[in-house]
């Protein structure tokens, strides 16, 4: 089975090469009296060149040999023999052979060199992405670990600490713990996405409650003002609560990380024709237009951005939203800040109906 599937494309290439040479030869047969058999040689060479661009080396060499034989047999006088009557024709036939072969081999070499260059570029790109991830991960994991170790060292053996110092150190340990946990979540979520096994577990969700929960986890440690603007009459949606909460959390957290202190972040939600749409908007610096297309790419981080961050948060937003059959988009708002919009199609139901269910 396996070998068959490998050989099939090659066999097809031999077949197609033969068909092309045969077809063109038949066509040429009718016009050879008009144009002369030497022009036919050029037409056949052209076919071999075309095949060289498309096919592997062996089928092309085969086509070169076949076309040379066809040209000799059908077109060089005397017709329908492989004999060649004049020295001039013998030289032409030989040259045909050589040119066709050189043509095939050169084209093949160029294509192979191109492919190698492409592969190399791709490998370099992957290595670069991998290095970026390692760098940002080591920063994101080691910074909070450094804070925890440093703080506990002080709490254990520094006798000069004031009560305020102790309070601050404990607060740093707690913040660092949350930050580590968040990175671990991101990594686990990323591997869930990579494995392709995300099966949304849908259940009725109160979007108001869900957004409050996601924001509550962030609010304590930030100076930004986060306001939630959701109509209390919004229907319930049948969605995966865990996935959606992570999406909102990552969007809001992204805004918190990359806007100046005391910026404002607004979250709004609406329902249009059984599609839940959620907006997360800030009044920060927004995204450079040239990079908007890449922000959802895995490991992508803006050029000239602050250190920290792994380039995973927004790619998880995209992955989870798509796992829920929804989509996410980003634009810079009229005030210059970033506006993320997610739209997820879902069954809706109003509370009063659910109560009767």
């Amino acid at each position, binding site marked *: 089975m396996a070998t068959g599937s490998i050989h099939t494309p090659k066999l097809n290439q031999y077949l197609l090469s033969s068909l092309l040479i045969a077809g063109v030869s038949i066509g040429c047969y009718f016009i050879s009296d008009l144009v002369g058999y030497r022009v036919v040689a050029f037409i056949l060479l052209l076919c071999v060149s075309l095949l060289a661009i498309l096919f592997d080396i062996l089928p092309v060499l085969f086509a070169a040999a076949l076309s040379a034989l066809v040209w000799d047999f059908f077109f060089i006088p005397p017709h329908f023999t492989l004999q060649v009557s004049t020295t001039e024709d013998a030289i032409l036939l030989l040259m045909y052979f050589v040119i066709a072969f050189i043509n095939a081999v050169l084209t093949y070499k160029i294509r192979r060199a191109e492919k190698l260059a492409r592969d190399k570029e791709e490998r370099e790109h992957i290595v670069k992405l991998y290095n970026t991830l390692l*760098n940002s991960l080591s920063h994101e994991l*080691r910074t909070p670990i450094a804070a925890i170790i*440093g703080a506990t060292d002080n709490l254990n053996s520094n006798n000069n600490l004031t009560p305020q110092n102790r309070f601050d150190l404990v607060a740093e340990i707690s913040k660092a713990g949350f930050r580590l946990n968040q990175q671990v979540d991101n990594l686990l979520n990323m591997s869930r996405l990579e494995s392709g096994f995300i099966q949304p577990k849908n259940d009725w969700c109160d979007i108001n409650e869900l957004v409050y929960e996601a924001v509550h986890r962030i609010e304590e440690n930030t100076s930004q003002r986060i306001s939630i603007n959701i109509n209390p009459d919004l229907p319930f949606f049948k969605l995966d609560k865990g996935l959606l909460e992570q999406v909102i959390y990552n969007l809001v957290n992204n805004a918190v990380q990359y806007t100046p202190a005391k910026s404002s972040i607004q979250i709004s939600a609406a329902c249009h024709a059984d599609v839940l749409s959620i907006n997360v908007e800030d009044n920060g610096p927004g995204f450079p237009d040239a990079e908007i297309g890449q922000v959802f790419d895995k490991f992508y981080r803006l050029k000239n951005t602050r250190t920290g961050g792994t380039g995973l948060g927004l790619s998880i937003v995209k992955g989870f939203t798509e796992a829920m059959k929804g989509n996410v988009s980003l634009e810079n708002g009229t005030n210059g800040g970033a506006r993320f919009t997610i739209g997820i199609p879902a069954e809706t139901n109003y509370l009063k109906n659910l109560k009767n269910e």
Partner: protein
Amino acid sequence: MSNKATILVIDDEAPIRKLLEITLQSNGYNVLQAATAKEGTIAAASHPPDMILLDIGLPDASGHDVLPELRQWYTHPIIILSVQNAEEDIIRALDNGANDYLVKPFRTGELLARIRSAIRTTTPEETAPVINTGALQIDLQNRIVKVNTETVKLTATEYTLLALFARNEGRVLTHQYLLREVWGPGYINQSQYLRVFIAQLRKKIEADANRPQYITTESGVGYRFIAT
């Protein structure tokens, strides 16, 4: 609390700045803080501190670029504090004029010891002509080295190497630096020379050459002379 040295912390991570502020202040240092390379260089220039703790990953520039810039005029110790633990990062920083390199996460006790050591090394009146540490005595003026009061015979190269270490007590000296200083600029890739001479030197001055007390190995980077 006698040492009221001022230390400038250049690090973009607020938790690290807070931690260092508490650690250093409670150990009697004054602390200045900067979150970016730009703020840091301005702070260093306007109130030259006694020491700088510099992070490599800064938002507006790499610490690798800030370091040589500072070194054009700043002569006090600079210790690098970074999450980057690759040898090439460490060597690059040390070659660019950092006195020491500490990888985050670090132990507080070790940080404080390195700070004390860096400040001590650059205080000129303390580079005594005779260094006494444990059983080892190095008389830099008369070129005499003693272990347990017995004079040790050193070759000229061994002595040059040891004297170089003694004058840079506490500081990591990179392979390249040692080779250049002792053998000359043409030898900076001949690390086998260094290995041989360090081994000989350790046999002569260390109690146990396999567990050196004085000349410690900084894996992949260089060596450090420690006076107790």
